[in-house]
């Protein structure tokens, strides 16, 4: 099983969720974060003092999927989250060694 960590632009959340649902993903966790990346670093002025805005609001998703579904999920995310402009986000994939559904105790792929 894989854990897909995807950072996206906030307004893309619904599209990404729909794209993932469409390929059979049935769960995810959504984090409101601030992202630092290529997009960051423009300067703003607050009360006359310049400062660089290093962090921009982003949504981070964590999605556990069966390994077999990982590529489809990545594809679903990239195609639905892409605007082509800087700051579209990153996807990182990690291995999950175990999964449990709290309600039932079901394990691994059954837990999803």
């Amino acid at each position, binding site marked *: 099983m894989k854990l897909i960590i995807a950072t996206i632009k906030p307004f893309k959340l619904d599209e990404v969720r729909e794209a993932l649902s469409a390929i059979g993903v049935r769960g995810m966790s959504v984090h409101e974060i601030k992202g630092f990346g290529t997009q960051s670093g423009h300067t*703003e002025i607050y*009360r*006359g*003092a*310049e400062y660089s805005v290093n962090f921009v609001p982003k949504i981070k998703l964590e999605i556990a999927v069966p390994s077999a579904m990982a590529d489809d999920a990545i594809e679903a995310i990239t195609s639905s989250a892409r605007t082509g402009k800087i700051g579209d986000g990153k996807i990182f994939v990690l291995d999950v060694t175990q999964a449990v559904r709290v309600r039932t105790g079901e394990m691994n792929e059954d837990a999803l």
Partner: protein
Amino acid sequence: MITQNGNMEMTRLAKIALPVALVMAPQMGLAQEAGSTLLNAEIGFIFTTFMFLVSGFLVFFMAAGFAMLEAGLVRGKNVAMQLTKNIALFSLASLFFYILGYNLMYPGDGWTITNVLGAFSITGLEPVGLEGAEPDLSYASVGSDFFFQLMFCAATASIVSGAVAERIKLWPFLVFVILLTSVIYPIQASWKWGGGFLDAMGFQDFAGSTVVHSVGGWAALCGAIILGPRLGKYKNGKVTPFPGSNLSLATLGTFILWLGWFGFNGGSQLYMDTAANVSDISRIFSNTNTSAAAGAVTALILTQLLYKKPDLTMILNGALAGLVSITAEPLTPSLISATLIGGVGGAIVVFAVPMLDRLKIDDVVGAIPVHLFAGIWGTIAVVFTNDAASLGTQLSSILIVGAFVCVSSSVVWFALKKTVGIRVDEETEINGLDMAELGMEAYPGMNAA
């Protein structure tokens, strides 16, 4: 002959059945010039007293305005403490102004040192039902005057709390507030409004650009300097902005202050017993509003031009600076003059805020530009529209008040610093005063049960 006869007639009647209807109000001359005549003195008393009460509750509400403005402009980790300071300072001012301040400020004939140091005594109000009292029907009830004046005193302390926010210890701050509201503010206020030597000199300060706002501003300036800037505010020669945590509250606070200012300036007419007086209050309301608007618009335009984007916090400060600027003379200007006076106030803020930062004076909410600098400007601007004001007197009064407040408040700040300390320790400041000094957060967030 008829005239004389008529007058006699009246005199007789007055002695017998209409004792009040014909009491000569001090405004008589003025009122008659305006095409009207005397009012029944008791009616005038009710009008003026009620006007003080209405103005007073408006100025009271400024306490909420300051609290919201400051809570909105500090960082989230210091909000609960800023709220605590605001309600505590208002409450302490309410107590110490009656215990000491009011009679120091308005000694009447009871000066301890004539025209310089007022009376030391606890405030007493008129008896219930005026039973056995001889009220001054040409003015207003002592109770209403006390209530109104108290609110000015408390406002002075609120000004300070914003500038020294996010790093000052609660209790030393409150000790400062007590001394400010019971001694420092009342003494200098007695010089002008208590009929002291500044008044005798011909100093003009209608509603307190100097007596209230610059006093708060000087005390704030001394406090901010002695306290030093917040950790990390000025590092490596750069200014690090600490954005306010809640601009909705800051805007709300500004609107509440704006509202309260109608009482602040309007009530300072001190009389509403004639058509002329109420008409003057109307001028004051209109000018006050116009000046605030001009301050806001100026800050809007200037921040757009200078920084390419408008700065909401500057616009809020600009509106307040417009209000402070017109406060020394809200009556005589025309609407156009009020626009110019307020506009300059707004401009002062836009330039003074970064200037203070360059001087590494860390004023969290912009209290010093708004209340001190615009207060000085407003006091000077009186000479443009009020012939009774002379530039020399205005300037020397500004300096005298400034010197007195700087010396006295610095003494207090230093005494506190050397004894109990005025600044929280580094860890407290870093973690936020809310958790460290209060053990609670303003917005605990975590929505777990």
